[in-house]
């Protein structure tokens, strides 16, 4: 397969998953900001931007962290490469280029999202509830995912799509969890308080995992349990364990199909082993933020290895 085609498929998945996460972030942010907090709601939005690495770009363009600005920035703003609008447009553009590598259903899912987005952009902002925007985004991300699973040939292109999905999802889960770190940073004595738990629950809710969590764990919501659920539990669809297992699987299939391993397979094994070995105690000993930061960096190295081995066409 042409490296560029593989790259287009990989980025379709990454962009769509990113749009989904940004919508979830918006939801977490708006919920957290409804709470009374020590610093007022503005600092919560700040921490959210901080966690996503977009704080600087936002401050440059908007300055004030008021909700409307955040919505503009995270949903509509084409200058922000990670906004929902930018991501969906980029995903669709990548799809258009490799149109013949996609099924009609997959193309339809991408194209419909894009066409509806253009309609949303024409609507009056005051008529657009935030919840409508976030629901809409998550629905279209799910539709694309469904179309891919239901109709696409299980060839190397399918593996590249999935590698994009798992890589992006793992990164996003880590970042969403890290929002908590930024929110709580100023006051260590909040840990374990009612407010603390409420914020954790909000996080679960944003990941669509609140009920799943209760089924899996039951009882009190504690930071330890949630960390276990989102990092180590292979049943959780967004956990780091699930994402690394997915990456292992699809990179393994590529190695088998092409008859050779690359540094990407080596890197993913290290990454997965790290997750496997980490107990919750060890994670909290290291510090959750430190652990997540390390994961994000290692996943980025893996992404570079995937790029060098497959997507750049430089592999010899």
């Amino acid at each position, binding site marked *: *397969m*042409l*490296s*560029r085609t*593989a790259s287009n498929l990989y980025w379709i998945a990454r962009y769509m998953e990113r749009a989904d996460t940004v919508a979830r972030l918006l939801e977490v942010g708006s919920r957290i900001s409804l709470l009374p907090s020590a610093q007022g709601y503005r600092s919560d939005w700040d921490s959210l931007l901080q966690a996503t690495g977009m704080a600087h770009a936002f401050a440059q363009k908007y300055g004030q962290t008021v909700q409307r600005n955040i919505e503009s920035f995270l949903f509509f703003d084409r200058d922000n490469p990670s906004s929902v609008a930018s991501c969906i447009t980029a995903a669709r553009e990548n799809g*258009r*280029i490799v*149109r*013949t590598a996609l099924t*009609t259903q997959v193309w339809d899912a991408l194209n419909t999202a894009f066409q509806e987005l253009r309609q949303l952009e024409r609507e009056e902002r005051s008529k657009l509830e935030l919840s409508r925007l976030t629901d809409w985004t998550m629905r279209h991300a799910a539709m694309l995912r469904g179309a891919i699973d239901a109709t696409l040939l299980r060839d*190397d292109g399918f593996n*590249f799509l999935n590698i994009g999905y798992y890589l992006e999802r793992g990164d996003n889960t880590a970042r969403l969890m890290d929002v908590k770190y930024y929110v709580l940073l100023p006051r260590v004595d909040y840990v374990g308080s009612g407010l603390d738990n409420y914020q954790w629950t909000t996080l679960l809710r944003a990941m669509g995992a609140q009920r799943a969590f209760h089924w899996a764990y039951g009882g009190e919501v504690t930071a330890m349990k949630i960390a276990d659920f989102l990092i180590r539990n292979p049943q959780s669809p967004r956990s780091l364990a699930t994402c690394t297992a997915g990456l292992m699987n699809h990179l393994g299939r*590529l190695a088998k199909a*092409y008859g050779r391993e690359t540094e990407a397979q080596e890197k993913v094994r290290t990454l997965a082993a790290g997750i496997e070995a980490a107990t919750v105690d060890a994670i909290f000993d290291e510090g959750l933020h430190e652990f997540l930061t390390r994961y994000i960096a290692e996943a980025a190295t893996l992404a570079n290895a995937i790029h060098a081995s*497959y*997507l*750049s*066409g*430089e*592999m*010899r």
Partner: protein
Amino acid sequence: MVMLRAVRRSETLCAGPSVCSSRAKGSAGAAVAQFNEMFQGTDVRIPYARLQDWVATMPQELRSLKQAEAEALFRRIGITFAVYGEGGDPDRLIPFDMFPRVFSGAEWGKLERGIKQRARALNAFLVDVYGRGEIIRAGRIPARLVYQNEAYEKAVAGFVPPKGVYSHIVGVDIVRTGPDEFYVLEDNCRTPSGVSYMLESREIMMRMFPDLFRENRIEPVDNYSEKLRRTLASVAPSKCKGEPTVVILTPGHFNSAYYEHSLLADLMGVELVEGQDLFVEGEYVWMRTTEGPQRVDVIYRRIDDAFLDPLCFRPDSMLGIPGLMDVYRSGGVSICSAPGAGVADDKAIYTYVPDMIRFYLGEEPILQNVPTWQCGRDEDLKHVLANLPDLVVKEVHGSGGYGMLVGPKSSRDEIERFRLKLAEDPSNYIAQPTLALSTVPTFVEEGVAPRHVDLRPYCLVGERIELVPGGLTRVALQEGSLVVNSSQGGGVKDTWVLAE
């Protein structure tokens, strides 16, 4: 019931595909009756015999239904683009007319012989002018027209591409003025587009009207992609052992013909690449794949010469592959059409194609050129100046209908002003008579009416010369209009060749 009748109008028509837009006022000029390809008087010509019943018995509702269906099919396929590089909205849909254009086997036989003859001569000419230049030494074509031509690539002088083929896909634009009168309007030796319309129009017609295909014995065109693949593979460079790897090189998805590029890649089962997907290393061209570099033997390029290799042509080209021309000249890769092929389809060279046929093949041309006067020649210029109101005068290098005079449609003032321009630089102009283009019945608002058409068949030149029986028929949908360009209300039709 739909009434089908032969409409006779006397009007003056001109030759260029992008020339005049409405019927002439019949002022000056020889008014010639146009040839209706279906009717001769009230008689139906034989190739169209079965279509008369078909259209006469088609209820109005069915017609609207089918037309809507055809449009939906085109949209779903995503076939939206501008033919002939006319620009405009890349997502634009070109109108499709369901009334087919039909040739008898005998008519096609003559066209086929004429087109193949032309394709052979054009390629012989290209090999010659990049070689010894015999035709110029023999005084048949002025050296200036060739060597000073913008399309002449000095970079490939002395190089003979595999099998001596420069132009692998020759698109010959043809108009008809009578039962046996076919004229070549122009040759396209570089990368003629529009073949996806030939393929998709047929797909859609077969899907919508299977009965028509049972009743008429229509030659298939869907083997075009297979023939194209074989043609491209047959000109693999000598360094290539084994099955050659063929790719299509596209400028990218913003190009108006991107759909066509991806369709052909899909149908041939070859990769559709952009410049960035290819690189030169050692003596070869490679494509970047997920399994590492893979050697490329034949590049069917759909980008212009100037963009092929920034080291050899335009240094600012982002579309090309640095070093490609070195590999090409050392026989490491084939490029189709070969760089430099454009010198054969220039408007000034066009007038010499009949001479080429006589010179290289020792044959008489089967298809005629539209009579053309070279204003650079004194006796021609005299004739042109004396007959300006009847002629179409074009700039040699102009395109898109700019800088031209359409005599029968121009006011006395315009003609006089043009006369001055012409006198200033006569060799920059050619002149042609206005032609009465043939018509084919076409579905219009009120029923069925004749509309003007042209034809572009696609001749494949490799180890063998092949022509799929069919082509792109463009139709001017406006009443009386001769403009078949899609940007100005032109549409397309399925083109049938009946089996003998």
